[in-house]
């Protein structure tokens, strides 16, 4: 029993932190909010060079034998530095789904993704903003030529730079009944509309108007999409939690630093218990999220059932990050409301993270489902 990261993890974390601080300081994060691309292609290539786009894939598919715990260490640093990147969408959700496809149909595409040349983004959520297999209702219709899909997907990240969009469609009723298709965003009938959002990150609505697809575009088997997507989303969920942990750690540092340096009534405000307790709230929420996140990652790495643990991590993380940014604002008070202060960069992204990959309510429900007899 040892709940703590190994020395190798700590070293990986230091490397990631130095890289992100050098390539993507918060000044760059601010610029990217106004940028058409919204991410740093050079850093993306660099991450490909470090094998970070395929860290946990099987070696035969370009992986390098890394674990989800390793990747979660990198994600803590992505969260700490607020690095905007299509990594979660492409390398984790789409990539891990493609890796699980038993056919070799998409191995060339996967190789391009591993090399940093292709980006594939998942299109899951629909206009009713539900999450999970039951919320996939965009219909796919079998036609003599193949398949046709119609409908709209929302909150699709980085669709504007995607080589392919991985669309979850409903091909039949039933416990799964979903099918995954790879769709060229430049194909006839596909329209991409930006969705301006609080985090100022690239999110899009993607509309499919009788888009024609062939059996070559199917990922996995017809009607069994969730069997590929589910495990990929579990991994992504853990990593999103790790990102939240990294952001929490940074907000704790910023808040403690500010409480030490800011003087009112002739003393540092960090001497007031009311302020101290706000800081301890951040420490507790961040730390508990980290423990849950590590446990879930470790279980997935060891092939153990982790549905409950993944949902526990995200149910905690979604609530925790809201409480954390709230406390950070209370410590910093008026100055955190000012755009020039870094706290608000975290606040605005936290609202995206809270809902991404299932909100607390969704994961509460998953936890409760495991308690039903």
């Amino acid at each position: 029993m040892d709940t703590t990261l190994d020395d190798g993890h700590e070293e990986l974390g230091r490397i990631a932190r130095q890289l992100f601080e050098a390539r993507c300081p918060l000044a760059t994060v601010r610029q990217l909010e106004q940028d058409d691309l919204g991410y740093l292609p050079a850093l993306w290539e660099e991450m490909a060079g470090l094998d970070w786009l395929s860290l946990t894939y099987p070696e035969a598919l370009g992986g390098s034998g890394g674990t989800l715990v390793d990747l979660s260490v990198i994600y803590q640093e992505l969260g700490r530095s607020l690095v905007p990147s299509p990594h979660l969408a492409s390398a984790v959700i789409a990539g891990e789904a493609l890796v699980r496809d038993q056919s070799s149909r998409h191995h060339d595409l996967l190789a391009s993704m591993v090399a940093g040349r292709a980006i594939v983004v998942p299109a899951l959520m629909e206009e009713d903003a539900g999450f999970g297999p039951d919320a996939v209702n965009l219909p796919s219709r079998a036609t003599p030529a193949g398949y046709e899909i119609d409908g709209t997907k929302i909150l699709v990240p980085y669709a504007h730079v995607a080589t392919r969009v991985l669309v979850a469609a409903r091909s039949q009723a039933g416990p799964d009944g979903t099918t995954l298709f790879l769709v060229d965003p430049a194909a006839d009938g596909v329209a991409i509309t930006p969705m301006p959002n609080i985090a100022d990150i690239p999110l899009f609505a993607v509309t499919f108007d009788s888009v024609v697809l062939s059996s070559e575009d199917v990922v996995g088997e017809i009607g069994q999409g969730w069997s590929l997507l589910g495990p990929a989303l579990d991994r992504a969920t853990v990593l999103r939690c790790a990102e939240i942990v990294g952001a929490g750690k940074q907000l704790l540092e910023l808040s403690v630093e500010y409480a030490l340096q800011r003087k009112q009534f002739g003393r540092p405000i960090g001497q007031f218990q009311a302020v101290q307790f706000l800081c301890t709230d951040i420490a507790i929420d961040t730390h508990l999220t980290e423990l849950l996140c590590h446990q879930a990652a470790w279980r997935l790495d060891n092939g153990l059932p982790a549905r409950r643990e993944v949902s526990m991590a995200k149910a905690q993380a979604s609530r925790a990050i809201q409480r954390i940014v709230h406390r950070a604002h209370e410590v910093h008070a008026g100055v955190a409301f000012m755009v020039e202060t870094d706290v608000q960069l975290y606040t605005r992204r936290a609202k995206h993270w809270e809902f991404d990959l299932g909100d607390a309510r969704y994961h509460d429900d998953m936890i409760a489902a495991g308690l039903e007899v």
Partner: protein
Amino acid sequence: MDFAFTAEENAFRQEVRAFLDAELPPDKAFNHEFNEDPDLWRFAFEFTRKVGARGWIGLTWPVEYGGLGRTQTERLILAEEFTARDAPMVNAIGWGLAAGALLVGGSEEQKKRFLPGIAAFDRFWAEGLTEPDSGSDLASLSTRAERDGDDWIVTGQKTYTTWGHHADVMFLAARTDPEAPPHHGISVFCLDLNAPGVSLAPLYNMAGGRQNHTYLDGVRVPGTMLIGEEGKGWSYIMNAFYAGGGAGARHAEMRLMLDEVINYCNTTTRGGVLLIKDPIVRSQLAELELMVETERLLSYESLSNATNRRPPQFGGALGVVVSKENKPLFAQTITKIVGPLAQLRQESRWAPFDGGAEAWYRWSYANHAGGTSQVKRMVLATRGLGLPR
């Protein structure tokens, strides 16, 4: 990183379970802390002696002091299993605080004289730290121990003396040097509660248990009953818990309670809907599951730090804040799920799961034992986060 127990550790867990299967009546609840039923206490004493005969009271202590020299992890497993079965292993002040203080600061002679007896449960120890004017600020305690030849004469008042009326001796903290700074003038003793000058007055708690005021009026304590060295009592008290092999298994107690609630929700219908299908109840159950899980992980984390000789993070105060704050919250959330019937005592035939919701809520305000969460938050803020005092 490894969140699993080893095969040997799992085998020990099975051994503990087999012992409990053999020794515990299947249909009896104990919760000796809040119960004055003499039959239960008799059983608890017998049971604890059997645990001692097995060598498990001093599981982690060196063999030469009556221990078995086993690991902290096995101690945690023992605590988890005992807690999960509500097994009445009494004398926590003896095997936790007193033994811990002896292991931290006792002389070789003291360890050999006291520890084998504690490991066999020869005497029942009461707690003698808190005073009416020294609670959170324990280091301000004013009970005096003055030298008289080789002996000490003790005068003062202790309070919240849990188990005092069942106990033979008291683990006493008294001021031996009023001139020294508060933390350096305290010594700890083993005080005979049958000695002349000791009197107890009952103090009943809302959980249904008895604590006590303990009056010490010129009580003579032999010099041999000083534990460790004079003036170092404070550091022993601070380090005793883990040294004695104490392992927090509060999560196992929470699990026990929550499983009752889950069973209730799976079998109880309100307004034609099973409680477990109610979306609000589902969120409340998830919240309770998270409290149990995070406390379990915190317990494993402090175990990992102890076994790998790493200093605890956050000044060692984070887990204790969580646990103290969760305790009433946990009980309150259960009463919200159960609803109006949560006010019914065990004696009512309408009380769900034997009145658990009602009783646990009353018990939950025992969370201030060992210091308030606010004091622990101050430690977390200053020692853990580096904020100024």
